[in-house]
């Protein structure tokens, strides 16, 4: 197990985990307004497919990123329509959206399977210039990775320092209070979902355009589901979401490390570590988490009826 291997795995964990962070941030915004999106996996896939397709067609990866964000936002609006306008059950609507995402992304992405596209440029992490080339190249990150933490802080600022964020959080806590204050909780939720969708799209854009630089069906690999769990884990707080995403990516990195070190445990089993770890953390801290949840989500997330 050389330092190079460790660094390599760390780098790979960061690259693959950034999309998870963006998706989690989006879900935090959505859940703070009182809407759970189980279809996040489908939303991300559509974002990835649309973004990748746009990149191939126009040859401009930045445009691809924008398209991915828009696609994510639009997908979330579908959820919004069902849940807000039609009063449908959130969990069922989310799963329906997930299926829709599976199918739509396959449709959009089909012509581009196997194609490679231009990626966004990578910039070396400041301070790595004096390291050996092989290691330094591992820490050459693209713009979206550098932006991840600032975006998390931006989301925090939006939620806690602006009037829009106040109204959004209030919608997740008490729709009656929002209505009584003369605002429209439905409109607020639509806005929240659109922002959440854009963040998810941003994450999937990174995955498809900056990281994998290709499109395959189901390329998000469960990130959408993990993000929903990470929201609880981070107590619905955007800054703590960074730690959650870090922990999960760290777990992924850890098991990759074990694999590369030749630890004689089946890669299948090692793959399960991140998920089991998340469940463990939720189980241990779950009781304490409950009171952090936006009150409006209570019926969905309380352990008791």
């Amino acid at each position, binding site marked *: 197990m050389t330092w190079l291997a460790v660094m390599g795995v760390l780098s790979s964990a960061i690259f693959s985990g950034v999309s998870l962070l963006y998706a989690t941030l989006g879900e935090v915004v959505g859940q703070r307004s009182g809407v759970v999106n189980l279809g996040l996996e489908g939303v991300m896939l559509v974002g990835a497919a649309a973004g990748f397709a746009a990149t191939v067609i126009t040859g401009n990866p930045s445009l691809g990123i924008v398209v991915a964000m828009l696609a994510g936002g639009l997908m979330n609006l579908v959820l919004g329509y069902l849940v807000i306008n039609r009063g449908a059950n959130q969990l069922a609507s989310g799963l329906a959206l997930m299926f829709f995402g599976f199918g739509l992304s396959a449709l959009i992405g089909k012509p581009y399977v196997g194609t490679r596209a231009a990626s966004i440029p990578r910039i070396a992490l400041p301070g790595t210039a004096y390291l050996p080339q092989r290691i330094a190249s591992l820490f050459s990150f693209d713009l979206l990775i550098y932006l991840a933490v600032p975006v998390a802080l931006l989301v925090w600022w939006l939620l806690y320092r602006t009037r829009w964020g106040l109204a959004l*959080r209030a919608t997740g806590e008490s729709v009656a209070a929002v*209505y009584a204050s003369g605002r429209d909780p439905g409109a607020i939720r639509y806005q929240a979902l659109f922002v959440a969708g854009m963040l998810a799209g941003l994450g999937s854009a990174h995955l498809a355009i900056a990281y994998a630089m290709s499109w395959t069906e189901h390329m998000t690999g469960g990130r959408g589901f993990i993000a929903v769990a990470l929201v609880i884990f981070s107590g619905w707080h955007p800054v703590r979401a960074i730690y959650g995403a870090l922990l999960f990516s760290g777990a992924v990195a850890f098991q990759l490390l074990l694999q590369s070190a030749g630890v004689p445990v089946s890669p299948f089993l090692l793959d399960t570590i991140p998920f089991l770890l998340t469940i463990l953390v939720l189980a241990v801290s779950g009781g304490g988490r*409950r009171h952090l949840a936006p009150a409006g989500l209570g019926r969905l997330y309380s352990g008791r009826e």
Partner: protein
Amino acid sequence: MREGRETGRLPAMEDAGGPPVVSMRGMVKRFPGVVANQEIDLDIHRGEIHALLGENGAGKSTLMKVLYGVYRPDGGEIRVDGSPVAIRSPHDARRHSIGMVFQDLRLVPGFTVSENIALYLTDLGPVPRRGKVRNRIRELSGSYGLEVDPGAVVRGLSIGQQQKVELLKLLLSDARVLILDEPTRVLAEHEVAALFATLRRLCADGYSVVLITHRMRDVLACADRITVLRQGRVAGSLLRAQATEQALVGMMFERELDRVRAGGSRKVGDLTVLELAGISTRADGGGVSLRNVSLRVHSGEILGIAGVSGNGQRELTDTIMGVTRSVAGRKTLGGLDVTNRPVSAMRANGLGFVPEDPLSLAVIPFMGVVENMAITDTRRYARHGGLTMDWGAVREDLDAAADRLGIQVRRTAMARDLSGGNLQRMVIVRELGRLPRLVVASYITRGLDLQSAAAAHQALVQARDQGTAVLLVSDDLEELFTLCDRLLVLYDGAVAGDFAPEETDVAEVGHLMTGSGRGDARGG
């Protein structure tokens, strides 16, 4: 309106008796099956407390909700300052300086006072400065006795304090007409006095207050003008000077009340049916813990638990029933130690439960009456080891119980189609039908019409007379004083007082209900 915001004082206008601020003419509001407001006229004048008096269901709340834009009227006209306006949402109402404090206080429990008020204000920029709202609150709260800590989380405040926040909210958003829907329902005596003092100071500064209430005492204590509603119509409107209690009662009701005189056979037995010894529970999140609660209910006795909602009543009934675990203490039923036994064991030992709001705590809404009868004792009606249910037996028991109690139960396909009164009747038949040893009754007449409330009282008294022990939790002191043989006060999860009704009075109990001692008998 810079002045208004900083000092809370409105420019001086002509005093009460001048042209009305708000004028409603011919208001009509229909709901499926009922006309809530029929051709109602109402005037609200500046600097006046206008009480809207009537019993439950008379249409008072509905009328004000129309004014505040929560409902759209089916007919009629509203004028503000003489000009006709269309109010289609609370947003519109607020634009016309009308504000409303609802019965179920529309605050966000998880937010601080500042955040709640910031949510409500419309003139803050997109990125409000941190101390701005806090300062505004501090400036205003001193003027009217509305002191609250801007940084406090609403969940931790008492109902009285939350009401203050609601009022501050309205004042800081430049409301001139303040509508309060049953504000005294959850307040104790001296809190009520403090509220009225605040309202009078506001009126002196030119605000207008509409006080929706069903309590005579409120009206006589503070109203300048009184409008009585009865069954959706105006039964009369007078100035305070002209109003007497008889006149008002005469307008409120068409006929004599069927009040249950709790005479009957007060044979309080020596047998202790229910005993709690040092019961303590641990609250999670927002609830209240019970602290070393001890009490005894004897057969043939009605023990009343007085207290303001939210002082542990729910925890008490839940612990007695077996829904909540106690962490200390002992509970016995009929001499048997049933500490922390499950609900099924309690029921098997003769416990019955009549809650407030049957639709949420006692009844399965989409099931019919017969099925609802069976759920409390499925074992009794199970046949073939549980593979089938004997519905014939259920019906027989239902008929027998209804006969015995003299209560008619309407059978419908779905319980949720029944009215509140009929639901409560059904629950009473089910719970009292087989003469339980102990009945836990909780706010049983809340939201009921007078006839149904009287029927409920009658059933309780009848059960008591036949030897059942009754534990009655209520916030209606009149109900408690009339029915109970003994009275306990519950405050902050602990027993604050224990007497027979003759030994005490409403004022003393009221003070215990809010934590002040026997000595502070003076109001606010």
